[in-house]
């Protein structure tokens, strides 16, 4: 289905809810809920709580992340917040500060 795209230069303040994928290259402050994947591009600034099936981040995120499936912190990605997910990868070169809960 259609992907929601927030390009660079755009700022959303508030709550964002989607049934489909979300790609963020801009700025979001608030809360993001997505039934599918959230992709946060390099250069993006997200200060929000994230809830999704999958989260892939290469930008800066401040806030807790809850993913049903997986969280991938890619090269250049920066996450400050707690992660709760079944699977987690942190790439070499990514930065992360927070707790991890993998339902062990």
């Amino acid at each position, binding site marked *: 289905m259609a992907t929601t795209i927030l390009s*660079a230069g*755009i700022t*959303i303040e508030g*709550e*964002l*809810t*989607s049934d489909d994928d979300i790609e963020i290259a*801009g700025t979001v402050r608030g809360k993001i809920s997505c039934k599918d994947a959230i992709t946060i591009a390099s250069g993006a600034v997200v200060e929000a709580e994230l809830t999704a099936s999958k989260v892939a981040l290469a930008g800066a995120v401040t806030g807790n992340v809850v993913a049903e499936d997986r969280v991938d912190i890619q090269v250049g990605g920066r996450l400050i917040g707690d992660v709760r997910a079944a699977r987690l990868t942190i790439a070499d070169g990514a930065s992360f500060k927070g707790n991890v809960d993998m339902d062990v």
Partner: protein
Amino acid sequence: MSTTVIAAGTWVRGSIQGEGDVTVAGRVDGEIEVAGDVTLDGTALVKGNVSGARIVVRGAVAGDLSGTSAVLLEDGARVVGDVRAPSLGVGDGALVRGRIETSDAAGSRPSASHAQRPAARPAAAPAKAAPPPRPAPRVEPPKAAAPHAPPKPAAAPAPPAPKPPPPVVPAMKKGAKAALKKRVAG
């Protein structure tokens, strides 16, 4: 700069600001304020003011539209709010309810139009609320005509009960119904 897309199935509760173009096919409860063009697709539902360079509307908007370049209301557009732009286009099938201003100087007095509207709306409300008192006088004559039958007055107070129901039907629903009929017909 690439376009920001709020897809169908996406709901934004809050403001969208910045540079670049925005296309909305989903739902936005809040302000959209961008430097680029704004396109509201047929499935879009926006509750809030929209401002941009060129605004193209094919969906529903409850809020003011302010385009620095142009505002185009195309088939399927349902707008409840004021429209301001140097250049305005209203296509066949577009529905508008609100003030329209198409001068370059329009942007200099948005506060004036906002100051006038609150006064206009309360004035309209009493006019619609006035009809309900009428049923009461109608009920009284039967009481006087048939004083022998006490049960009837008991029945008579019942009709006033439906009085509260005449609420003002939101204008959006009227437009929505018309749009639905058109879709079914077309």
